[in-house]
């Protein structure tokens, strides 16, 4: 059991906004910052584009965690998209809890285009937290 947990590599779906967090990821890459390869990034135009069903679908298909990235409050390219995202994600976390999925598996972070280091740090931290949590209860293996 213990070895199983050690070898466990979480599968993270990352959905990030074009203007800030995706740019931050880009910066992390060009700056050659290291972060775990567990995250699969998907770029969308705004964090408010991320429909809660995208997240539920990711979990239903066996993702161990979902990472959502947007612009800092007040910096949304579309003025208030990230405020909407914040409410949706927070409400969804409560619902995930009811579904029996640990709400910590869904993480929302704001990283500006200059915060490559923050992005790398958050992904590293999230991966470590998921390793502690273990595989998603929905993972079919």
């Amino acid at each position: 059991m213990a070895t199983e947990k050690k070898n466990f590599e979480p599968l993270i779906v990352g959905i990030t906004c074009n203007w800030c967090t995706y740019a931050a990821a880009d910066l992390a890459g060009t700056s050659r910052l290291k972060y775990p390869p567990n995250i699969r990034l998907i770029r969308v135009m705004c964090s408010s584009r991320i429909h809660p069903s995208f997240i539920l679908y990711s979990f239903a298909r066996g993702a161990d965690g979902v990472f959502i990235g947007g612009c800092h409050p007040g910096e949304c390219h579309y003025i208030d998209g990230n405020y909407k995202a914040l409410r949706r994600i927070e409400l969804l976390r409560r619902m995930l809890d009811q579904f029996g999925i640990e709400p910590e598996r869904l993480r929302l972070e704001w990283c500006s285009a200059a915060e490559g280091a923050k992005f790398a740090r958050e992904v590293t931290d999230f991966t470590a937290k998921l390793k502690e949590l273990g595989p998603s209860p929905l993972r079919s293996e």
Partner: protein
Amino acid sequence: MGEEKEEEKKEEKKEPKEKIKIALYWAATCGGCDIATLDIDEKILDVVNIADIVLWPVAMDFKYEDVEKMEPKSIDVCLFNGAVRNSEHEEIAKMLREKSKVMIAFGSCACFGGIPGLGNVANREQIFKVAYKDTPSTVNPEFVTPQTEMMTNGGEKLTLPDFWDTVKTLDQTVDVDYYVPGCPPTVDRVLDAVGILAKYAETGELPPKGAVVAFDKNLCDECERKRDEEKKIKRIYRPHELKEIDPEKCLLDQGILCMGLATRGGCGARCINANMPCRGCYGPSPEIKDHGAAVLSAIASILGVEDETEMIDVGTPEEVEELLNQVKDPLGTFYRFTLPGSMLKRVIIKPEKEGGA
């Protein structure tokens, strides 16, 4: 035209046109759908004119064996209401699918799981514990629960259907041709369904597979209340918490959670006309895969506080927390009728301390 009438008369007397055969079945349901079928009043006679009923457990005494003996595809249309919750439901659903040319999921339970589908927040063990032990009116010290098999003193084996952990929709069990949502389907939509039967009896024509007998727009399109363009609600009220509900104004604008914004129209907005919010029985609007997620998304977006740009800080500010705390039971509210048909289908229940195995 006159000739036709005469013909009709003749037909009535001598050789009636060949009737179609229909079956009506109920699985995990309250029985309301069967009653709704009768709500069409005298039009039920039209149904009897065009169709012979071969199975209708709620009203007529046919046996499963009678249906079993029928040739495959010998029933024209099966109206199946109720979710699939035990082995009997599944068995009969499969049998009726085999015997029927057209399978219609009738009512929200068959379409999406419906209210019985909320059983998916628990499992069999938990449900039995509440139903056969914990309810105050139950005296059952030995905790006797339904068994699937038992031997009588005479040595006869008796069996009962197996109760499942998870409620399923009809289309998770068998192939479904058409959907008639609603809890129950309203009279107008039942008549639409009867119209489809009549057309089929007459011409053999059917709508495209997968058609939903309701509207292709959501309920807000049907609703006549006035609404704010820039929707923002600061406080959520339950209907009884408000002294008066303005019958002209959008319920959401008044702070009442109404599911109409992501729910399929076609019900005639009957709840809303009675000053009550939509609870979502017609299921998700077209193109929406997950009803609860869609309602959650819409409701979360319109929850607002006065000056947004000022108040938000990184993380979860208290105001947002407080706003969201007002949504008491997101899962039960947003998936009231559609839990088994949703993406996650059910709540995950971890086995209770089984020695860490």
